[in-house]
C-alpha cells in the first residue's frame, strides 16, 4: 500500500519519523483520517490520540495535547505541544490534570469568553488524556 512520511515533533524532541499508511489525527473540528495524496492543509489540533496504521492495523497510539499538523500529499508533520505514547500515560497524572483544569475553568467563570473558551479547551484535552490513560 502507498505510504506517506509521518513526523511527530514536540518542542522537546522528535518522537516519530517514518513512512506510514494512514494516520488518524484529532483535528480541532473532528477526527481526521489522513491517507497518502491528501490536498495540502494546515489544521489545528485538539487534545486527543493520534493513531498510526500500517498493514491495516493500528501500530502506534500517541496522545497529543493540542498543536498543529501540516499535511502535504507526501508528508504529514505534527507539531504537538506535548506528546506521549498512550502506553506510558499515567492515570494519576491525567486525573490530576483534569482536576487542575476543572479548577481553572471554574475560576475563569467570570472572565472574558475567550479565556473561558481556552480553559474549556484545556479541560477537554485533560479529559481526553484521562480517557486515553484509562483505555491503555
Amino acid at each position: 500500500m502507498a505510504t506517506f512520511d509521518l513526523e511527530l515533533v514536540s518542542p522537546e524532541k522528535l518522537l516519530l519519523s517514518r513512512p506510514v499508511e494512514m494516520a488518524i489525527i484529532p483535528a480541532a473540528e473532528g477526527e481526521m483520517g489522513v491517507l497518502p495524496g491528501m490536498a495540502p492543509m494546515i489544521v489545528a489540533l485538539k487534545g486527543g490520540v493520534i493513531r498510526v496504521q500500517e498493514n491495516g492495523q493500528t501500530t502506534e497510539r500517541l496522545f497529543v495535547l493540542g498543536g498543529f499538523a501540516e499535511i502535504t500529499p507526501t508528508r504529514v508533520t505534527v507539531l504537538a505541544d506535548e506528546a506521549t505514547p498512550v502506553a506510558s500515560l499515567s492515570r494519576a497524572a491525567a486525573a490530576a490534570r483534569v482536576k487542575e483544569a476543572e479548577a481553572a475553568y471554574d475560576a475563569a467563570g467570570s472572565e472574558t469568553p475567550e479565556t473561558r473558551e481556552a480553559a474549556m479547551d484545556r479541560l477537554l484535552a485533560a479529559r481526553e488524556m484521562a480517557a486515553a490513560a484509562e483505555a491503555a
Partner: protein
Amino acid sequence: MANLKELRGRINSVKSTRKITQAMKMVAAAKLRRAQQQAEAARPYAERMARMLGALGQAVAGNPDAPKLLVGTGADQVHLLVVVTGDRGLAGPFNTNVSRFARARIRALESEGKTVKILTVGRKGASYLKREFASRVVGEVSFQGKKRVGFEDANEIATRVTAMLEAGEFDVCTLIYNRFRNVISQTPTGQQLIPAELPEAKAEAGDAQAWYEYEPDEATILAQLLPKNLAIQIYRALLENSAGFFGSQMNAMDNATRNAGDMINKLTLTYNRTRQANITRELIEIISGAEAL
C-alpha cells in the same frame, strides 16, 4: 623571604583550589553534553514551526488586522529587552559579555529617545543591569534550583511577554542572549521577537506549497501558532544559553586548573630553594662554630 611553614600552607591551599576547579570542570563538561543534546532535540520542532509559519505568514501578509504578535503595534517607541544570562557565576566572561552587550543596546536606544524596559532571565544579568538601570527593569525570571530548563519555563516567559503586549506596554521586543557557536565561543546576539521576523517560505520542488487549506481558518491558526513560535524562540535561547554557560564554565575552570598547576610549581620551587638555603646556612653556622673552637 617567606618562611617554610607559610609556603607549605600556600601550596596546600592552591592544591585544594585546583581540586575544586578540576571537579567543576568535569561537572560542567557532563552538563554541557546534556545541554547540547537537549538543544539538538529541540531543533526539529523549531525548523518545522518556521516552515509552517513561513507558509502562513504569506497567506496573511498585508492583512490590516493581522495579529499584533506578527506585525507589532506599528509604533517603535517602547522597547522591551529580554536579557538571558546564567544563574551562576564562575563561568569566565559569559555573563559579563551579554550584560555588556545589553547595556550598549540600552544606551543606544535611549540616546535615540526611546523608552526601554528590561525583563531579565537569569540572576547574573539581573544584578548587573539593576546596578545601572534599576528603574527600567520590569521583571525578573530565574531558574535557580532547577535542574534543567523545560519548555514550560519558556512558555511562561512567552505568556508574560504576550500579556505585556496585549496591555500595550511595549512596541518592539528583542531577545538578547549568548548564541552558542561552539564550546569555546559564544557571541552575544540580539534577536527581534516582535514584530516577528518571518522566515522565508522555501518553495519545495514539486510541492504546491502555497496552496494550503486551513482548518479552522488562517487567522485562528495564526493566533495559536504565533504565541507558540514566541515560546519556541525563547526556549531555543534558553537552551543555547545553558549550553553556552556550561561551555564557558568548562573553559574557565580548565584555565583555572592550569593556573593553579603553574602556581603550585612556582611555589614548590621557592619552597625547595628556601629549604636549601636554610640547610646551607645552618651548615655554615655549624662549621664556623666548629672552626672557632
